[in-house]
Structure formats: structure tokens, C-alpha cells
């Protein structure tokens, strides 16, 4: 009975959503290109070298940065190591499950990682200490605490905010050995990549879909831009297609919306 009722409610909501969208409106009264309220709190995990708690509407992600020395990869002997990992906690939604990372969690981590890496946010060359032997390794782990759509952007903002505020030990080289000093310095950040995710519902593109909108969307595209408004990463999602025109339209929206969000992230992480 109650499931039937839910189903009816859901069908009505969806019809309502599509009708509203035809008039350029959304159920939660946002404009089509308007993201939900973004809140950023940094330093929430003092034991981490950097951390941030981000809420994007009701979607909540906590990112923590851990920094240590490590051995460089053989093909990049003079570059540091950056790894972004994400777990969609079982507490985050009735559909999430405990266990090894799902396909969705792996995609989330890799797309987030790509936005950071490809924008060259962190100057990896500056993380090299003794080329081929010792570099600085930066691990960013993300806990998705609550799911209400658009994990990609919330996770990306959390990682960027955590990295922008992370402090690491200053290392010096003495007699070919790496020594940690007591001085704390920031991670060498060069740009602030901003991910913007756009969903297509019916034939309309909407920015920052919430869970209800995601349930009705048939396509998702995430586009990340850097300080110069250049596009540095993208990922089309869902088992469906997008037209070439919509890709270019999404790019323009991402550049525009990204600019405003970047200002907000920079403000919150000064």
C-alpha cells in the first residue's frame, strides 16, 4: 500500500517537475543554472593535514588530506604523488552498501581525481624532494556522508577546499637525506578547479541536480574548469546520450557557474 502510494506520489512529482522545467522552473524554485546553497567548513578534522566539510543542499562530503613522504612512481621520478579516494558511506543513503568500493564510488573518486590532476591544481614538481628517491605523497580521502544528488561536485569542492587549506611540513635535504622541519607550509596550489555537473531532464539542462532530479534525469555531464575558464576535465554519465549542441551549451554553463563557485571556494579557504 505504502509503496503504491509512494509510486503515485513519485509519478505525480515527476510530471510536475517536467512541466515546471518546460517553463524554466524547478521544484525547489531554483533557476535552471542555479546550484544549491554551498557551505564550506575547513579544518574540521584537526588530525588531518587539511580537511573540509562541504554541504551542497543536503549532499554532504568530508574530505581529509594526509601528507607523508614516499617513493615516486618510476615513470615520474621528479614528481610528487597525489591520490584521491572516495567512499560512499553506507550511512549516506538507503541505497548505499557496506563493502568494497562500488563502481559508482570508483568513478566518483577517479573523476574527482582527474579534475584535480588535469587542472594541475597542485604543482607536482614542487613535491619532489630527492628525484627518483623521495617525494611528498598527498592522499585525499573523501567520505560521502549524505547523498542528495550531485556527488561529483560536492566531492570535488571538498577535495579542493581541503587541499587549499592543507599544511605540510617543510622538508630539507641534508647529506642526501630528507629531514622534516617544524615549519608548516601550504601545499603548492596553482589553480582552483571547479566541477559543475549538469543533468538533462526531458530536454532541459539543469545545474546541480538533487536526488529527486537525478531520479528523473536521463543524462549527466560533469565539466571542470580552472582559474582561466579553461576546461580541464569532463565526464558524461548515465546510460544515455547527449547531443553535440548540449555538450557545448553545458561547457558554457560550467564556465559561468564555475566562476561564481570558485570565488566562493576561495573566500571560504583563505
Amino acid at each position, binding site marked *: 500500500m505504502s509503496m503504491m502510494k509512494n509510486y503515485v506520489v513519485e509519478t505525480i512529482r515527476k510530471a510536475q517537475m517536467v512541466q515546471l522545467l518546460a517553463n524554466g522552473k524547478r521544484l525547489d524554485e531554483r533557476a535552471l543554472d542555479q546550484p544549491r546553497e554551498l557551505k564550506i567548513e575547513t579544518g*574540521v*578534522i*584537526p*588530525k*588531518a593535514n587539511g*580537511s573540509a566539510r562541504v554541504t551542497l543542499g*543536503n549532499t*554532504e562530503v*568530508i574530505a*581529509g*588530506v*594526509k601528507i*607523508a613522504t614516499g617513493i615516486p612512481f618510476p615513470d615520474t621520478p621528479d614528481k610528487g604523488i597525489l591520490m584521491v*579516494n572516495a*567512499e560512499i*558511506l*553506507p*550511512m*549516506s*543513503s*538507503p541505497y548505499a552498501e*557496506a563493502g*568494497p*568500493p562500488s563502481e559508482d564510488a570508483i568513478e566518483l573518486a577517479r573523476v574527482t581525481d582527474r579534475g584535480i590532476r588535469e587542472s594541475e591544481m597542485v604543482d607536482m614538481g614542487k613535491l619532489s624532494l630527492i628525484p627518483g628517491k623521495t617525494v611528498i605523497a598527498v*592522499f585525499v*580521502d573523501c*567520505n560521502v*556522508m*549524505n*547523498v*542528495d544528488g550531485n556527488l561529483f561536485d560536492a566531492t570535488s569542492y571538498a577535495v579542493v577546499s581541503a587541499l587549499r587549506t592543507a599544511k605540510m611540513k617543510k622538508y630539507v635535504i641534508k647529506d642526501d637525506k630528507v629531514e622534516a622541519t617544524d615549519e608548516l607550509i601550504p601545499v603548492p596550489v596553482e589553480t582552483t578547479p571547479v566541477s559543475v555537473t549538469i543533468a538533462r531532464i526531458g530536454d532541459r539542462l539543469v545545474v546541480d541536480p538533487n536526488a529527486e532530479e537525478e531520479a528523473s534525469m536521463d543524462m549527466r555531464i560533469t565539466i571542470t574548469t580552472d582559474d582561466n575558464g579553461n576546461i580541464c576535465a569532463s565526464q558524461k554519465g548515465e546510460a544515455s546520450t547527449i547531443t553535440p549542441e548540449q555538450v557545448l551549451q553545458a561547457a558554457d554553463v560550467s564556465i559561468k557557474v564555475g566562476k561564481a563557485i570558485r570565488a566562493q571556494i576561495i573566500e571560504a579557504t583563505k
Partner: protein
Amino acid sequence: MKKLWEGAQLAGSKRKLIDENGIRLDGRKWNELRPIKLQVGVMKNADGSAYIEWGKNKIMAAVYGPKEVHPKHQVLPDRALLRCRYHMAPFSVDERKNPAPSRREIEISKVIREALVPAVVVEDYPRTAIEVWVEVLQSDGGSRVAGITAASLALADAGINMRDLVVGCSCGLIGEQVVSDLDDTEDKEGNGDMPVAIMPNLGQVGLLQVDGVYTRENFQKAFELAIEKGKEIYLMQREALTRRFFGGEAQTTEVEEGAE
């Protein structure tokens, strides 16, 4: 008081964990608690949730259920199946922790579950599952008892029928001195840790683990101290629930330990 200090020395601690005046590194007396903050109803999706800050512990507990059991063959015909996962975020400890569950986390998940089940009226929810997720965002001494304390609030917040709340406190030894509520340093450099969880109104103990070497006398002293402190924390739990259900917005219950 000299005795305390000697005890700490004898045990080979690198630092004096308690000074000549019986004051611990963070300024507490032997029987004081670290600051505790409790918030109930903080998560949007979960059926119930609670957040606890206890010393440097930052722990989120969330509950889903009663819900359908998957896989089917785990269904209990006469009661709810309570699942529990205690998990540490990779950034919660000094050195990054692998996100896969460790043997330690598997054991703690088990003892937390065994401490919570007796408090839940599981027979009211036959053939269902109740899931309790405890996520340690930042870890300090006593994270399992803090997790239990939050988890039982999350169960209450989810409207699950309960016989009593469950509340935990860990006591232990510095040298031969019994102390309450060890922090991370005291846990590692001290001489014993005894996490205890109780159902305060029913006078029952749901979790008891012991590390360290206790005389029979100290064993009893530490155990009884843990129960006593648990009862104090129970008052904070009640306060937090009251604010949740009668105080409108989810609010923080912050009770600083008074003088003993």
C-alpha cells in the same frame, strides 16, 4: 599523591602522564571526563542519527531500519537482525588508514552490536533488519564507547523501541592509579584501558573489555568508575534527546565536567 607519579614512572611512560598533584596532561583530575558534545538528528537521509565529539573523537552514528533483510536467508523469523559497522575514516588517525575494514574494526563492530542488541526491543520488528553505521571521523582514546553512546541515540532518534539507552565510558590505569576516560596518549602510554557500556536504568553491562594489568581491587575500582561516569554521560544523552524532540532544531548538548 606521590604514589601516582611513581606508578606512572614505573610503567616506563616516557612522559609523566599524571603530575605530583594528580593532574593529567590535559589538566583533568583522575576521575574527570573529557568534554563531550552530543547532537541528535543530524543526518538527512538516515532514519536516525547522532554525532558525538568526545575529547578529540568525532564520530557520526546513523541508523536505517527496520527494513527488508537481504539476503533473505539471514531473516530472523521472531526478531530484527541488527547489523553494525564501526569504521574509521582514512584520515581519522595520525597515519592514513587503509579504508578496508581491519580485524580490529571487525571485532569492535561485533562488540558494539552485542552491546546494542539487548537494548533494542528486537522482537517488535520480526523479519526486518536494523542497520547501525558508526563512522569515526577523528579518533581519540575511547572511540568504541563514544560510538556506542552515539549509536544508541541514533537508534532512539530512528524511533526504534528500546528498553534503555546504552552509554559507554572507558576507564583504566596510569601506573597503579585508576583514571577515567583515557585519551589517546593515556591509552598508548598508560597501563590499561577498560571500555564499559551500560544500560543505566536497567543496571546492566553490555560491553566489557579489559587491557592492562589490574589488581583485583583496581579492577573493581576502574569498573565501578566506568559505570559511574557512564551514568553521568547518560544525563547528557537524555538532554540531547530532549532538545531533539522538544527543543525544535537539532542542538548541541555540551556538558563540561564539573569538579568532583
